[in-house]
């Protein structure tokens, strides 16, 4: 329920552990609400477990430098010992996202793509088994988005990821499993499992055929 409006009714969803599941749907279908439900952000809900959440906006704090933004969770939990212990990992993560030389830059000195990389590093630094992502790359230009999809697919390996997106190609590139959300109240379609490992090559003919099918499915609805 969201503002008295039924978004989904008696929904039961299983996510495969250690895999990335992409929830694909058009704008306004209720996929973000579903994700916020899983994160325990809707009134009366609790998180499904130890989750790390990554939103569409990078949500970097402008008064903290890049490294401190990545360590934000540890600052907010008020555990200086844990923060010191995790700092080398935060540095390593920033190295991996290609920002190892920008540790002490302020967010406003970075491009949109770099900021989203910092957000990705912050999400991973939380080191939670479940990662919830709400259209994390929607704001970026096409090439940056591709780079970040590759990076995310590589770094998120082994975690249970639920990624919400409206972009069929994104779902096909990074999702081990894809589920289409459609209708109002929405229903969740059966799991689609494309062949090959993530991140998948967008030039693959099988992938493009599947993309056409997904677009058709999104268009028609149930």
């Amino acid at each position, binding site marked *: 329920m969201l503002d008295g409006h039924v978004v989904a009714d008696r929904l039961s969803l299983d996510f495969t552990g250690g895999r990335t599941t992409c929830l694909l749907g058009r704008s306004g279908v209720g996929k973000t609400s579903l994700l916020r439900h899983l*994160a325990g*952000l809707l009134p009366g809900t609790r998180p499904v477990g130890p*989750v*790390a*959440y990554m939103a569409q906006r990078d949500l970097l*704090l402008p008064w903290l430098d890049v490294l401190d933004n990545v360590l934000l*969770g540890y600052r*907010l*939990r008020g555990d200086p010992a844990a923060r010191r212990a995790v700092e080398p990992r935060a540095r390593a993560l920033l190295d991996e996202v290609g920002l190892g030389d920008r540790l002490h830059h*302020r967010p406003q000195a970075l491009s949109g793509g770099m900021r989203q990389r910092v957000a990705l590093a912050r999400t991973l630094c939380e080191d939670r088994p479940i990662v919830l992502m709400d259209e994390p790359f929607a704001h970026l230009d096409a090439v940056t988005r591709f780079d970040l999809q590759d990076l995310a697919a590589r770094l998120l390996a082994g975690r249970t990821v639920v990624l919400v997106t409206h972009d069929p190609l994104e779902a096909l590139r990074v999702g081990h499993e894809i589920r289409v959300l459609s209708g109002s109240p929405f229903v969740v379609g059966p799991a689609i499992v494309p062949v090959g490992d993530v991140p998948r090559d967008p030039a693959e003919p099988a992938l493009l055929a599947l993309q056409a099918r997904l677009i058709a499915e999104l268009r028609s609805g149930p």
Partner: protein
Amino acid sequence: MRSAITALGLIAAWELLVWLTDVPAYILPPPSRVAVILVQRADVLLEQAAWTAAEMVLGLALGLVLGAGLAVILAASAGWRRWALPLVIASQAIPVIAIAPLLVLWLGYGMASKVAMAALVIFFPVVSSLYDGLRRTDPEWLELARTMGATPHAVLLRIRLPAALPALASGARIAAAVAPIGAVIGEWVGASAGLGFLMTQSLARGQTPLAFAALFVLCLLGLALHHAVDRVARRLVPWQSFQGD
């Protein structure tokens, strides 16, 4: 540069007006006369200006500390908010000028009553701007903090308060602009020193040019205070860029 030209133009017009109308100096002294007094009586003016400046700065500091403290308490606790917020608003319904004689009665003719006066006029803009800022934190930042398992204390201190600093900065700018009002009203009501005191004294004795000179120094003091606060405020929020800079 342009503001200097505007100021010079206005002064020239004033001089011309006095010269054309031949108005006596005790009604409206020409700027040239005020300038002479500024130099001749520089020692008195500086002495009184130092006194008023001290009242303004102390009042500003006190008002900022009390105002910011109360805003944080209001934002942190709903219980306190229910009790204190109506009082804060009601306190603003009383004109400060009306309390001035009481403050002089209680705190004496010295500096304390003027500091209290300045702090009192500053208090409200600081509380309301910081409290507003504390309530307007980006909700997505708060959600992110929630998913991270942040304590309410840490959220207030590490997210809401830094996020409200730009609001506090604008409150402090308003405070710097009104601080001279508090100090001078206090001096008018009852004082033994200060520029406001000098003004009332010299007007009573028909020394209007000296009153104008005091007014001019007061204006400079106000500008200096505003400039200083503006610089500190910018340093406080280096991540904010200002349009029109």
